[in-house]
């Protein structure tokens, strides 16, 4: 979409302010030339956050923008912000805080802000840094929407689902209401009937509040190509994807007041738009725009404008959907960094569990990132009735199926028979295999499910201690030998590994088996296990650390080696 848009809008006049902010005219503004009110809103934010004279120097702001785009894996924005002098990156405390805000916004807490203060960063600098990071997220979301091929898809891990989110705020000391005669005051009173906490906590910088309310008014209030309700739905869904309880509770209230979905229906939209009662086209709209959210991006999913086009959305509507998503990310980041407390009773505090909802739509249902399936031709022959062609598939994949089952069920005497059963099941159901994943991934999922079924009737080996709530913390901290493999014969090592793997709780064991022993990619393993990529990665790390604990006593460096 982006190239067409850029080519069609060559006549776009570059704004001298934005040119000054970035060093050259930003394509992300040019791509929105069909929506002058959005460009106007973004210019105002750029002016108030980047261009104005403030405590934070321009160089430090650019370092923050660069940090946000690096973390977002957004090559377009990273190039836009250019190479920075090395000394601008020496701001460890501030950049560390921004990195956490950009990467794990819901986990930012009052203690992070307190740590900044103790490093000598005062509240005004913190506010400016948070606003700059929020602007950086807005840029990244716009670029992800307009230039999806520039997203490097560098997926990052999220904290484990068991971790608690700290929500107590606000984090900054100063609180003030906008002046009664100001434009922002008039807008907020008319829009909400009160001054939301998100703006009160920015009392140190009334000009920022003016710019933010101006942007909200220009983007959300104007009836443009999407309806107001559709835009509010996007804000709600993106905020839910970012686990932003504040923006979700605010958004749900506004939607119900505007006559859109009820509060209960808003809960459903947050959980899974596909299960809600909204029009089917809007379900696709929310599914795609939620992928633009910062956390969702980390799930390795990419915004697909063509899905919206297929649902009847025009190019202008798609552009506006991207713009509204970017505003949602701006507001979410601002709130997460400042800790504004909700203005309405919270119906449900969003937690990490909401990152892994039950819906299959939120999970990687295919590993289409690898478009070529080397088995495709043979599978087609079998599906067309060539029974003997199945022999080639058995030959190719017998090692993986056998290894997966051996690691899952443990009893080697049973494994050959169960391996045969898996291939028979695959043969019986190959007619329904639709190539949404590679054949090998589909076959692996059959093997895992068959192995799990067998395990249900068995008494397991004693598992390692597992503490879901407090998280797993490494306990063994003695150095290992330089070449631990040389301490034991291969057969002894294999036996130790076999016992250690079989003692892992099943949910960690199967992930270690697929990733480290069968050498599947992260995407393949996640698809085979029907897990999100962050969940897969969290379990893999936990499994590896548990194995390390289990094997440590055999491989730690002895005193003789030490000397």
């Amino acid at each position, binding site marked *: 979409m982006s190239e067409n848009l850029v080519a069609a809008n060559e006549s776009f006049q570059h704004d001298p302010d934005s040119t000054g902010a970035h060093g050259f005219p930003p394509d992300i503004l040019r791509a929105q030339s069909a929506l002058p009110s959005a460009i106007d809103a973004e210019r105002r934010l750029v002016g108030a956050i980047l261009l104005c004279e403030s405590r934070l120097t321009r160089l430090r702001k650019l370092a923050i923008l660069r*940090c946000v785009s*690096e*973390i977002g*894996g957004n090559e377009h924005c990273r190039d836009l912000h250019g190479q920075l002098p090395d000394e601008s990156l020496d701001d*460890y405390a501030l*950049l*560390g805080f921004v*990195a*956490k805000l950009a*990467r794990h916004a819901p986990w930012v807490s009052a203690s992070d802000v307190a740590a900044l203060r103790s490093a000598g960063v005062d509240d005004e600098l913190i506010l400016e840094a948070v606003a700059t990071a929020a602007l950086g997220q807005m840029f990244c979301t716009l670029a992800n929407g307009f230039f999806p091929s520039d997203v490097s898809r*560098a997926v*990052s*891990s999220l904290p484990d689902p068991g971790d608690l989110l700290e929500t107590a705020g606000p984090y900054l000391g100063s609180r003030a209401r906008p002046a009664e005669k100001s434009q922002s005051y008039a807008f907020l009173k008319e829009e909400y009937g009160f001054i939301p906490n998100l703006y009160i906590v920015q009392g140190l910088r009334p000009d920022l509040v003016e710019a933010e309310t101006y942007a909200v008014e220009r983007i959300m209030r104007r009836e443009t190509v999407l309806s107001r309700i559709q835009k509010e739905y996007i804000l709600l869904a993106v905020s839910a994807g970012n686990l932003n309880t504040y923006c979700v509770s605010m958004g749900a209230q506004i939607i119900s007041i505007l006559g859109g979905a009820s509060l209960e229906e808003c809960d459903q939209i947050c959980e899974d738009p596909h299960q809600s009662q909204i029009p089917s086209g809007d379900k696709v709209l929310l599914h795609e725009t939620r992928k633009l959210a910062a956390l969702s991006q980390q799930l390795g999913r990419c915004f697909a404008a063509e899905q919206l086009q297929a649902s009847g959305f025009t190019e202008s509507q798609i552009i506006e959907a991207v713009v509204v998503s970017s505003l949602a990310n701006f507001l979410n980041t601002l709130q997460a960094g400042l800790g504004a407390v909700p203005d309405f009773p919270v119906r449900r505090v969003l937690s990490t569990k909401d990152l892994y909802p039950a819906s299959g739509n939120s999970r990687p249902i295919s590993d289409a990132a690898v478009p070529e399936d080397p088995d495709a031709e043979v599978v087609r022959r079998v599906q067309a009735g060539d*029974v*003997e062609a*199945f*022999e080639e598939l*058995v*030959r190719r994949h*017998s*090692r993986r199926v*056998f*290894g*997966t089952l*051996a*690691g899952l069920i443990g009893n080697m005497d049973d494994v*050959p028979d169960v*391996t*045969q059963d898996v*291939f*028979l099941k695959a*043969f019986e159901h190959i007619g329904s295999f639709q190539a949404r994943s590679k054949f090998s991934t589909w076959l692996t999922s059959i093997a895992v499910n068959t192995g799990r079924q067998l395990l249900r009737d068995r008494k397991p080996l004693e598992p390692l201690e597992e503490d879901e709530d407090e998280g797993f913390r*490494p306990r*063994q*901290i*003695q*150095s*290992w030998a330089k070449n*631990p*493999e040389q301490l034991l014969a291969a057969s002894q*090592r*294999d*036996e130790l*590994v*076999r016992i250690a*793997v079989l003692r892992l709780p099943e949910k960690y064991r199967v992930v*270690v*088996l697929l990733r*480290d*022993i069968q*050498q599947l990619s992260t995407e393949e393993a996640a698809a085979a296990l029907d897990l999100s990529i962050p969940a897969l*990665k969290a379990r893999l*790390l936990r499994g*590896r*650390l548990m*194995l*390390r604990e289990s*094997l*440590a006593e055999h*491989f730690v460096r002895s005193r003789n080696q030490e000397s």
Partner: protein
Amino acid sequence: MLTCADFLAEFGDYLEDAVSSNLRAELEAHLHECKTCQVIVDSTRKTIRIVTDSGCFALPADKVDLIVRDVMSRIRKKR
């Protein structure tokens, strides 16, 4: 400066070489100072190496033909 908890939160991606250059620099600055995290990184990498290289769940090469033969025999019998 990162704490050990910060380091562990990013450890999975660090192992997979999936962190940005800025974050990598921060993590390595922490590693330079922290003996405990150095040990955890080193021993986890060795754990992965030992587990990956292990053949403990491998199908012996001479058993492949046997499995192929038995599977195809059962399929033909069913038809």
